[in-house]
Structure formats: C-alpha cells, structure tokens
C-alpha cells in the first residue's frame, strides 16, 4: 500500500472572489486516488465536489494546497510532464449536451486529440481507432455513429461519446463529474460496468463524483467514499464502512434520504433522525465551529459550535465530528446507542453484484 498514489490532493483550498466577498468553495481537502481504485466524492449540491474535481483535473488553479500527480506537484511540472499529466488525467463532464461540439461529428470529436498528439496516422487508422473506442462504450455498430452529429444522438449516447473521448487518450485517471447523473438507469448501469472494466483491466484510477449513493455503492464498493459538506470532507473511509455503518450525522442523513421502495424500511427511515433544517448555510457566512451544526440532529450546544472539528480516526474511517470524537473518548464503555442506525435503509450490505 506504500506505492505513490496517482493523484494526491493536500490541503486543497479554492476561494472564489465574489462581489459579496470571498467564498471558500473548498476549504482544505486531503484525498488520494490510487491506480485501479475508486474514490467516490459524495455530498449535496454546492458542497464543493465539482470544484475539487476541477482543481484535481488542472482546469482551475487552487488558491492554496497542492495537487500532485504521481508524487509530482502540478506547479513544479515542466512542459513535458504537464503534457503527460494532461493526457493521463481525463475529465468527463456532467452535461453530455454541452460537452460535445455541435458542429463536429462523433468521429471528428473522438479523433481530434489522437490526431493532434500523433497517436494515429491516416484516416483509415483514425476511423478504426474511433470505432474501437465506440465499441468500448457499447455504441455498436460503430459505423452508424461515427458520422453522426451530437444532436442526432440521445443523451445516453452522447455521454458515451464523451466517455469514449476521454478514453482515447489512454488515461490513467478518470475524473467523472456526475457523469452518470443524466443517464437513465439501465444505461447508467451498463456505463458503470464499462468504467468498472477499465478500472479492473487497465488499472485506471477514478475520482468519481456523485450525489447518488446507490451509484457510489455500486461503483466504489471496493474503494473509498469521501463525504463532503460545505467544502470540507466530513467522513472518509472504505465504502462498505461508510455506507454500512455511517458515523457522521451528515452521512447518516444522506443515507437516510435515499428513497426506499420497501414500505417497512421506509417507515423505519422516517423514524430515523431528521435534519433540524433543510437549509444549507451560505458559504459567505459559515457557521462557527462545525459547519453542519445548525442542521445536525446530534447537535449539542457548547460542543459543536466552538471550533472546527478535525478528521479523526473512528471505526476504520475518518470522521470530523465533535460528538463522535467525544463519544469515542468516553466510550471505553460500549454503550454507543446514539450512533448505530441499523434501521437506516441503504445500510444493508448489498450482494456485490446485485443491481442497483
């Protein structure tokens, strides 16, 4: 496990200057992605997932902190290393409608990068390569897609073309920004399976952003999940641990919010603790102490609103929560009722290969 991670974010901060004052979209995130592993970033809208991913992809420059690719900080790279990084790290956009140039055919979109970097020679070879890429993302027969324009494709097909384009560069790390959120369920599973094949067969690392815990559970079962809230990681650990036995109240709330088709479980879900408020605090004016405390069901005055909680090891994962930390300190005694939610839906371990 001591190999250099593919991607390492340390102390990543991104502050945007807005008219209302600086906004810390991401406030100090430390994450690692290893080859062939998946790191899932989950959290509600506006919590800084995408900002983190964009900094990791080198699209934006973080205001402080470092992005390291194979142990080398981006800022210290020379031109050749930067080109290598550019090619190895590919980013799949969320919106399949906006990410394809409407004036170019699928063939032209797929091969632009290949041609530019001299990876294919001649039209026949380029077409063969493009067809291979399309087959890889299950767009078959490729011949009927190569000369299509984006507007002639459905959303799912476009998203596959998007994925195929990033695969063209033989990436070592794929950053997927909600890449499956626009797809319908059956296509989502087949695309996830395609990506899973890349992970297993080609050792591609994934930074996978989603707000869909089912997707996270399905795709990152062997990997890790990092739960973000208002620009900070609040819980980070192996997927089965985080989903099966969440510790942070926010993670619990996220898991509790998953729709549950089984009415008995849904009832149990309703009886699970509710957030005290649905409103997300403004990034301009973060609450003192734990940023989650105005909404937290486990909020205890004096404990939570003092200082920022730090990520601390708890139950085989890191959690940033004063209450959890205090309870752990207290609990040599095993009476830990407040923190286990066996009834929380989604906390049942699925069979590894079951459908979502």
């Amino acid at each position, binding site marked *: 496990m001591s190999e250099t991670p593919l991607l390492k974010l340390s102390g990543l901060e991104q502050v945007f200057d807005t008219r209302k004052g600086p906004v810390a979209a991401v406030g100090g995130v430390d994450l690692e992605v290893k080859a062939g592993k998946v790191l899932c970033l989950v959290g509600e809208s506006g919590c800084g997932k995408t900002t983190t991913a964009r900094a990791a992809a080198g699209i934006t420059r973080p205001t402080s902190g470092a992005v390291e690719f194979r142990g080398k900080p981006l800022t210290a790279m020379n031109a050749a290393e930067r080109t290598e990084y550019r090619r190895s790290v590919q980013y799949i956009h969320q919106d399949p409608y*906006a*990410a394809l*140039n409407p004036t170019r055919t699928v063939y032209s979109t797929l091969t632009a990068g290949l041609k*530019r970097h001299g990876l294919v020679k001649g039209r026949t070879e380029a*077409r*063969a390569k493009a067809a*291979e890429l399309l087959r*890889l993302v299950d767009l078959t027969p*490729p011949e009927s897609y190569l000369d299509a*324009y984006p507007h002639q494709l459905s959303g799912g097909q476009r998203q596959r073309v998007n994925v195929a384009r990033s695969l063209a560069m033989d990436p070592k790390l794929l950053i997927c920004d909600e890449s499956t959120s626009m797809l319908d369920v059956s296509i989502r599973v087949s695309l996830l399976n395609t990506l899973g094949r890349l992970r297993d067969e080609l050792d591609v690392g994934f930074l996978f952003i989603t707000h869909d815990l089912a997707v996270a559970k399905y795709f990152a079962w062997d990997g890790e999940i990092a739960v973000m809230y208002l620009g900070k990681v609040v819980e980070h650990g192996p997927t089965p641990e985080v989903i099966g036995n969440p510790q942070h109240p926010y993670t619990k709330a996220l898991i509790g919010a998953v729709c549950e088709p089984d009415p008995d479980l849904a009832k149990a879900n309703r009886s699970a603790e509710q957030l005290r408020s649905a409103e997300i605090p403004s990034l301009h004016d973060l609450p003192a102490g734990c940023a989650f405390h105005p909404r937290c069901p486990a909020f205890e005055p004096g404990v939570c609103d003092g200082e920022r909680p730090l990520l601390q090891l708890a139950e085989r994962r890191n959690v940033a929560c004063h209450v959890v930390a205090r309870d752990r300190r207290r609990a040599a005694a095993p009476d830990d009722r407040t923190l286990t939610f066996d009834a929380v839906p989604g906390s049942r371990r699925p069979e590894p290969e079951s459908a979502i």
Partner: protein
Amino acid sequence: MTAVEAPAAKPRRTFRESTLGQIWTGLTRSPAGFAGTVLVLAIVGFSFIGPLVVDQDNPTDTSMIWTAPSGEHWLGTQYEGKDTFTILVNSGAEPIWVGGMAATMAVIVAVVLGSIAGYFRGRIDALLLQLTDVTVTIPQFLLMIAVVAFFEDIPPWGVAIVVGSTMWAFLFRSIRAQVMSLKEREFVEAAKLQHLGTMRIVFREILPNMAGFIFVNFVIAVNQAIYAIVGLYVLGLMPSGTPNWGLMIHLSWQNNFFLLPVAMPYVLAPLLMIVLFTIGLVTMGRGLDQALNPRLRDR
C-alpha cells in the same frame, strides 16, 4: 483491449459530405435559398461573363439618341445614342468585385481580431476595443468621402480598402461577444483537456459554431459595400472611367433623365440590378445559415 478489426472504413467522403457539398445542398434545399442563389449567380454571371459575350463595340450615334427598346437595342439607347443593355452588362463587375473585396477584408479582419480578443481577453482585448470605439465613432460615409476627395485618382481596390476598414468594427464586436460566450462552453474545456492547442481550439472548435453568423454577415457586408461604392459614384466623387451602376444613376440624376419617359429603361436598369442583387444576397444568406448549421441541415 482487444485488437479490433478495421471497420468498413469509407476512405473517401462523398460530395454530399464535403463542406462545399453541404453548402450546396443547404443552398438548394429551401426554395428561398435556392431562388436567392440563382439570382445572385445570375447577376454575377451577367456582370462578369456578359461583357465577354456581348459585342463591346458601342459607338456614339447622334441619330439614335433615346430610342425606345427594340429587337436590336433591348433596353433602347441612351443620351449619346449608345446601347443601354451593353452599358448595363459592363456596369456590374466593378461594384460587385469591389464590394466583395471590401466585405472579405472586413470579415477576415473582424473574425481574426474578434476571436483573438474574445478568447484571450486582457490587454490585447482592451486595445482592440479602444480601436473599435474610435472606428465606430467615425462617420463611415464622411470618411469615405474625405478619402476619395483627397486622393483624386483612387483605384477601385483603394475604395475597397477604405470601405472595408470602416465596416469591420461592428462585426468585430459581435464576433468577440460570441467567442466570449462560446469559450465558456464545456466542449471548449473538453478540447483544452485534450491539449488540442489554442489556435486549433479558437479556429476549429469555436469558429465553426459561428459559421452561419459569419457568412450571413459577409453577405450583409457585401451589400453595404456595394451601397457605399455605388453611393460614391452617385455623388460623383469617383473618377468616371469604367461604366458602373453608380455612374448610371449619377448621370440620370444629374441630367434629370428621370423626367424623360423614354429614358426609363436607362434610369431603372441599374436600380433594378442593385435591388435584385440585394434581395438575392439576403435570401442566399438565409440558406447559407441553414447549410452551415448541422442542426438545421438535416431535414
């Protein structure tokens, strides 16, 4: 990954798929676009090929002053007894090529500078914006009149340069604005992530998205430029060497030919040519817009 057998690759594109082919199908598909194209091609052909076909011998004949249209003189004769139709055939070439040249110049300058300014922003953008501010505030026609009056024997290409240099600023602004909006789109970011290179991104990823807009503006610019040059002739500010539409209108106006019923063919012919050419260009522009937009092209 498994090696994949070569797909049934089409090594050569058919005519329909090439850019020219697309423009052609776009122009010919809609009835209006087709009519416009035919009109423009007809007038261009009339003005450029016509002079090679029509007998250029057109002597002054005092016995034939202001005769009505006849089999021999299709549009009758003018005040010197010359054949009006021959004059008309020879009159179109200069306004058209000068207008085309001025418009080409203005559009190229506007597109190149506008894309660069919109994409890179910063100091070069500020500088170019200042330049357009200055250009826009200069009254175009007055500048042209001043320049033409100053250089008495100005050649037609000189007029093209003067006309073109007053027309680029507005188009520059719209191109710049469009590039600024397009460059924020995700497909541009995707191109950047593929390391496609800045020039390629600007001119091959962003620009084609404005192709219809640029072509329509080109057509409008040709129109404006023709108006400008014809206007200069009408005002009598240009050396009256080669025959052209503007000169015909100038003479009709200066000598009150429009009061003479028998002179009507001579008075109306150049006006009709200009009006038809304008209508043709505008309808053709609409067809071009469709031809260059893959979304409109399909059905």
